């Protein structure tokens, strides 16, 4: 009986399927272009060889492998590696200058579009609350800031008093 294939072998088989699928696609393009000037590409012609190959490979795999829970563990490890591979690919894509510029531009466009709308909405809400004789967010925020400033003053007073008491204590100890 053949040994159970390890995760690296499963990964190699997946890679092989993907490459052969891509080759099938490029063969299809070449053949179709040679056959007629402007053919209508058949999408299933790409997926059919990939799927057929995949099913055959996995059928062979299951035929060779004893059915134990270790197969599930290997499947999990394969998925982990597949996710890790995708993570690396995405990481590389996001680590490019182009991506960073695109991200910055998208954010900038969002902010430029959002700024006037946000300002208009804030003003309308402020007016509506005023009309209803209710406090607005800016008023509540202002009160909160005043409280923070008062706390700060009390802290400074406490520090000053503590410093003076320490000096007094030092003088008395002399």
């Amino acid at each position: 009986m053949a040994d159970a294939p390890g995760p690296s072998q499963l990964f190699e088989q997946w890679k092989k399927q993907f490459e052969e699928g891509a080759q099938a696609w490029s063969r299809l393009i070449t053949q179709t272009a040679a056959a007629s000037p402007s053919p209508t590409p058949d999408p299933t012609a790409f997926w059919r060889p990939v799927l057929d190959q995949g099913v055959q490979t996995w059928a062979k795999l299951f035929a060779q492998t004893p059915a134990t829970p270790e197969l599930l563990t290997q499947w999990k490890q394969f998925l982990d590696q597949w996710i890790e591979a995708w993570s690396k690919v995405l990481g590389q894509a996001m680590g490019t200058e182009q991506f960073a510029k695109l991200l910055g531009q998208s954010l900038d466009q969002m902010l430029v579009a959002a700024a006037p709308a946000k300002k208009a909405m804030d003003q309308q809400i402020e007016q509506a609350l005023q009309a209803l004789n209710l406090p607005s967010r800016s008023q509540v925020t202002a009160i909160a800031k005043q409280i923070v400033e008062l706390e700060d003053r009390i802290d400074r007073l406490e520090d000053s008093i503590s410093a003076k008491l320490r000096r007094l204590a030092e003088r008395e100890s002399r």
Partner: protein
Amino acid sequence: MAQERFADVVERFTSGFAADAPAETIKQWQQELERGFRRLQNLHGLMTNPVEPKTGQTPRVEIYKRNKSRLYRYESTRTHRTPVLFVPNLGISRPYIFDLLPGGSFIEHMTKQGFDFYLLDWGVFGPEDNDLSVDECVTKILPRMARRVLETSETDELSVLGYCMGAPISASFVASHPEVPVKNFVNMAGPIDFAKVGLFGLWLGKDKFNVDRFVDTLGSVPADMVKAGFKLLKPTMDLSTNLNLWWNLWNDKYLEGFQALNKWANEYVAFPGEFFRQWVRDFYQDNKLYRDELVMGGRPIRLERITCPVFVVGAKEDYIAPPECVRALLDKVGSREKEYIELPGGHISLIAGRGAAVHCWPKVSAWLGPRS
């Protein structure tokens, strides 16, 4: 030889399999079936009766508060004389990650080792805090917190331990306040040289990210945006997290840890606007801390003025504060005694999880202990 049909494979599996299978294989399948059943049971429990995980259970007392910031002192045998002031990141996430669960808590570990442990909880910020700056944190909040630590612990010196963003902020404080008697400084996964900070450094670059427009438009960085930024760093994280959850769902202990960590991982905190502006401009874009160009409250911040023993911990797979960015602190401090260690795992694995309890926390407490 003709290729075996898939139907033949299925027939071979379903007939006569059990009779031919060895006892060990049958036992493994039984175990797997039991685990499958436990998975479905726990999944049902998660969906119909989710239990709020009990985090932050190490006993503590609130010593001082200033606006949203709180200073907590944890119960401890206090066998080490020098207290430890722990300065975590401001905003981003809640600090109960450091005291996640009994048996899996950095704070619990340190208090059991006999350290008089103080945690600075920066708090959850609202629009009234948008004027809070890095300057204020370094020149007003931290000195006051340090003073309170010294008063309540009745000692002449303290150790400062900074994690993540808390490390460059506390390093700036230590470097610019020589009058505060800091005996030891520990940097855990704190970025210092922002030229080597990885993806965030690239995305927040001056030519790509207009921080002034961002803050002037939004006022603050909403928690959802902070979450989106961190999720973008590792887009496949949720996929692998859920895959691992399904794989380990039969394990009640794993589930308990997962629920606690997942709660924290999805609870983000907004950044005050002015803090974010200064943080991005002075640290990420201009790298002023490393270049000795930072000035706060009129005081120049020169890392060479840190002369106490320094311990730096980096994580090999940290993509938020890469090891070379963290290690750079050793190149700048004026300390004669300085040490760097690099541990397996990522940014969070230094402060939470089984790996942290085995690899990181004992090393931090072992370094601090004789110096406390």
